[in-house]
């Protein structure tokens, strides 16, 4: 088929324009909007310094992402199609366009160390044929650097990606963290491919690739493998040497992206469009057919109307059945909500438990920097693990709901987009309340207070047996009590700091739980609404088509025979036209 899905929808729209069915038109328009907006997100991930940016540049055939010998990328860079090269900085709500040559100043570790500018991501638009089909390449900062909060962010972006390329260089086989990441990626993303880069530099790359494959097999992950050399690709692009290009290993990767990633997304889009178009046209044809039958044989019209009424009742039955699937859906979502919430709270409790143990060991102000970083990292990774899990469960639930519908066509699921948001962004950083100063002066005063009372106490006792108020015993007692008061005070201060730290910790974890919980509840609620609307509209459209058929049949009984024959001709022509459109759109 040569028509693109959008063209097919346009044709179908034109064909049904005369039947005055705004509900069906709305459905097609929605399908069209979904198609026009569809991007295929390809996430390029891996540990740092594995050649991710070089890979993106090699795929695009243009030096888009900054490349540097030291750690380079600090902000996720989204590359998509645009007529003119553009660079847009995205920061929470704001979008700022900057000149193209300023990209390195924002995307690289040298220009924007540790993402000081607090950018969400950077969008780059360039005119490249590979992007024209809706591909979106995302270059991520490396995982595992010193500020490893990146890792959690990459994990939470996984469910929104259509495909993931895991990049690791040929210097060594997979390490434990990489394999762990792959395992997670495979569970939430349909297309995961492993790319081994820098094959030009390491003579042993075949052995490494072999070992990597064995590692993957041993944990039961199936993924495509590609061995590439960006240096060779770059050389080939500059000299136009096809031989070198072949050696670089890029062509199979590009084919994979075109055929498998884009192709799969495209065929999915085609399937769902074809489904929409067919459903719409079938409904109209059915009412036309009913009219045709009634017009050609008025005698049987009564029987026909009976049959149609029966069908209408069946459609009403579908609504009734909707009660059952709605039950499953709402029960499922409630269960899921409880489970996800429990999982999140459990993870957080574990963190709090470990953290409190660490706090109990000593003065928290001394370890505060490391401690707060650890807590924040742990919370971030717990939240992302929780959200990945929630997404998996949600998809499973959607399939369960669809099982309530009989025919294959009715079971078609709407695409469930789980928006990737970073719930931790709105969480305030963990901070310890500024401490009261307890310097030498304070210490002296405290000591004096204790010492004074000790001196007075024992001095007065001494006067009873005839010693003076200030005697060696009372001075000794004063010193002892003074020392004890200082010690007590120190203990009290440490204890208060510990309590403060515990409060700060609990507040922070509460905050995280609150935001992350809200986030996951939002996702689930949106999904519930999507599914409910999807299936309800389906049932209503079916019912309305049947009603129209009945009306048409009833009308035909009253019509004259001359009208009847012209109407029959019209009907035949219309049916033929619709059938043509239907033929054109094949899944």
């Amino acid at each position, binding site marked *: 088929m040569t028509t693109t899905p959008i063209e097919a929808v346009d044709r179908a729209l034109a064909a049904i324009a005369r039947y005055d069915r705004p509900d069906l038109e709305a459905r097609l328009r929605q399908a069209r909007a979904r198609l026009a907006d569809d991007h295929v997100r390809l996430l390029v991930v891996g540990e*740092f310094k594995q050649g991710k940016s070089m890979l993106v540049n090699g795929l695009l055939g243009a030096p888009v992402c900054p490349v540097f010998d030291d750690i380079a990328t600090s902000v996720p860079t989204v590359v998509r199609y645009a007529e003119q090269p553009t660079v847009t900085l995205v920061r929470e709500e704001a979008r700022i366009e900057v000149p193209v040559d300023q990209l390195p100043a924002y995307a690289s570790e040298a220009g924007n160390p540790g993402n000081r500018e607090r950018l969400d991501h950077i969008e780059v638009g360039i005119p490249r044929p590979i992007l024209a089909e809706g591909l979106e390449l995302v270059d991520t900062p490396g995982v595992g650097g010193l500020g*490893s909060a990146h890792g959690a962010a990459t994990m939470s972006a996984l469910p929104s990606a259509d495909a993931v390329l895991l990049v690791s260089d040929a210097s060594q086989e997979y390490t*434990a963290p990489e394999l762990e990441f792959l395992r997670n990626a495979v569970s939430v993303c349909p297309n995961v491919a492993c790319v081994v880069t820098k094959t030009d530099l390491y003579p042993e790359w075949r052995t490494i690739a072999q070992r990597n494959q064995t590692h993957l097999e041993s944990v039961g992950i199936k993924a495509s493998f590609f061995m590439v*050399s960006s240096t060779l690709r770059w050389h080939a692009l500059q000299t136009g040497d096809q031989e070198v290009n072949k050696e670089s290993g890029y062509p199979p990767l590009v084919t994979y992206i075109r055929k498998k990633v884009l192709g799969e997304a495209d065929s999915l889009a085609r399937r769902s469009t074809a489904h929409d178009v067919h459903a719409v046209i079938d409904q109209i044809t059915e009412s036309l057919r009913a009219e045709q039958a009634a017009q050609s044989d008025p005698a049987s019209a009564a029987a026909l109307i009976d049959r149609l009424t029966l069908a209408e009742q069946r459609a009403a039955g579908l609504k009734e059945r909707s009660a059952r699937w709605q039950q499953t859906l709402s029960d499922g979502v409630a269960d899921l909500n409880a489970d996800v919430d429990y999982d999140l709270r459990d993870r957080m409790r574990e963190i709090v438990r470990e953290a409190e143990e660490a706090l109990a060991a000593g003065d928290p102000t001394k370890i505060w920097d490391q401690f707060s970083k650890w807590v924040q990292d742990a919370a971030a990774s717990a939240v992302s693990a929780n959200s990945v899990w929630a997404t998996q469960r949600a998809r499973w639930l959607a399939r369960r709901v669809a099982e309530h519908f009989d025919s294959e066509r009715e079971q078609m699921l709407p695409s469930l987009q789980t928006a990737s948001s970073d719930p931790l962004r709105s969480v305030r950083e963990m901070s310890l309340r500024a401490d009261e100063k307890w310097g030498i002066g304070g210490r002296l005063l405290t000591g004096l207070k204790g010492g004074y009372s000790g001196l007075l106490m024992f001095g007065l006792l001494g006067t009873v047996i005839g010693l003076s108020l200030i005697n060696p015993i009372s001075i000794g007692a004063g010193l002892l009590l003074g020392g004890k008061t200082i010690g007590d005070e120190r203990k009290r201060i440490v204890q208060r700091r510990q309590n403060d730290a515990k409060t700060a910790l609990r507040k922070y974890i509460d905050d995280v739980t609150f935001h992350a919980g809200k986030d996951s509840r939002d996702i689930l609620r949106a999904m519930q609404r999507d599914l409910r609307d999807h299936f309800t509209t389906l049932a209503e459209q079916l019912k309305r088509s049947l009603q129209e058929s009945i009306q048409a049949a009833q009308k035909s009984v009253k019509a004259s025979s001359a009208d009847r024959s012209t109407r029959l001709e019209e009907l035949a022509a219309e049916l033929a036209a619709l059938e043509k459109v239907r033929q054109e759109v094949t899944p």
Partner: protein
Amino acid sequence: MITDEVRRVLSTAIDAYRDQPRTAHFLRGQLDRLDSPLRVAIAGRVKAGKSTLLNALVGDSLAPTDAGECTRVVTWYKDGPSPRIVMHPLLGDPVSLPVVRRAGALEISLGDAQVDRLVVDWPSQSLRHTTLIDTPGIASLGFENSQRAVRFLTPDDETPTEADAVIYLMKHLHSSDASFLESFRDQGVARAAAINTVAVISRADEIAGGRVDAMISARAIAARYRTEPALHGLCQNVVAVAGLLAHTGRTLTQSEYTFLASLADGPREDLESSLLSADRFASGSEERAALLRRFGVFGIRLSATLIRQGVRSQAALAEELVSRSGLRELQRVLQTQFGERRELLKARSALLALDRVLRTGPGGGGRLAGEVERIFAGTHEFAELRLLSALRSGVVALPRPMALEAERLLGDSGIAPSVRLGLAPDASSGELRQTAFAALRRWQAHAENPMFGRRSADACRVLVRTCEGLLTR
């Protein structure tokens, strides 16, 4: 002198524990350790190039290297009169293994034995003053291998680690590197660790995709890490080394040189285009493939350039390769950081071990514990080490320029008086006296400064003593 004192205390302790054979045996081991070479462990993530660097340091292809994960047990390489390999199983007595070398490298087959460690004796000049210890990589897929390394370097059963100093290899600073270095600081060698760890950016030749200027990039990265505050407290220095290049340079053969020279004399374009990738270079020729294994893409590129520039003999090329690989720099750092402090580091390890025994052992430690405490507190060298480590980890805060001078005076970059005073190595004794005197005055003034806290003032007093020591030399 410090060694003598430690030896005396240890002997007394052995005497005191003579009715507990295990403890006495352990202490006798510590005593022997005082007379044996400094033990330097080479640690790092998997495939960081530990064995390659060890080979480069020894100057021989001793440790087996491979594309896959290779080192699986902790292996000691020490000097000995004749080659010998002894396997120490977890249970049972040590077993001697046959010494087999294939293509230069040792071939050791362990079978299924549960091995605690391997000890390789090898007659070598480079091993005379330091025993090198190769460890399995951290963050390895073989969880057990990685555990072995961590257990060796930071044992949790309350005994100090067996290594006196550590060379930590990393490709780039990874978070697991940092956490490992940190755990190393917290436990084991404890109390002062930044002073016995040197970080190495290994495989430096691969950093810039094997371009000829790769080493320059690598040095710049090393310089950046040196100023990284997170790393400052974790290790003493960061050096970039191309291990493969260094090893090859130290073992370059005449035939390899001849082959390289013939390559360099051929048309330049041919070589350039064949060096585009490793596959292209090695295709179809066993000799070329072997050369590639020894040199890497960067090594061949560099050697060809050097030969073209007029390095025209095997010895000269070997010399150039070694000096460009950064090995010299590493050796110098090891010399100043570990070599010159050898006795002190060993004494410290022994004292820490004794201290543990006294603390955990049953009773009887009173007098000995006091003795150990006295040596720890009373020896100025230990005070210097402690202060140095405290300064680096930021426990003691001094204004930046003062801290830098203090670190230098404490022997951060070498313990020779001229280095400590920041003078040229050939400075006259009069000059030395003058500078030392000026430093003494300065630190005396600092020590009296009422604006400093108690810790800082104590630090200044340690430095005053250091300056006095420099004056009396």
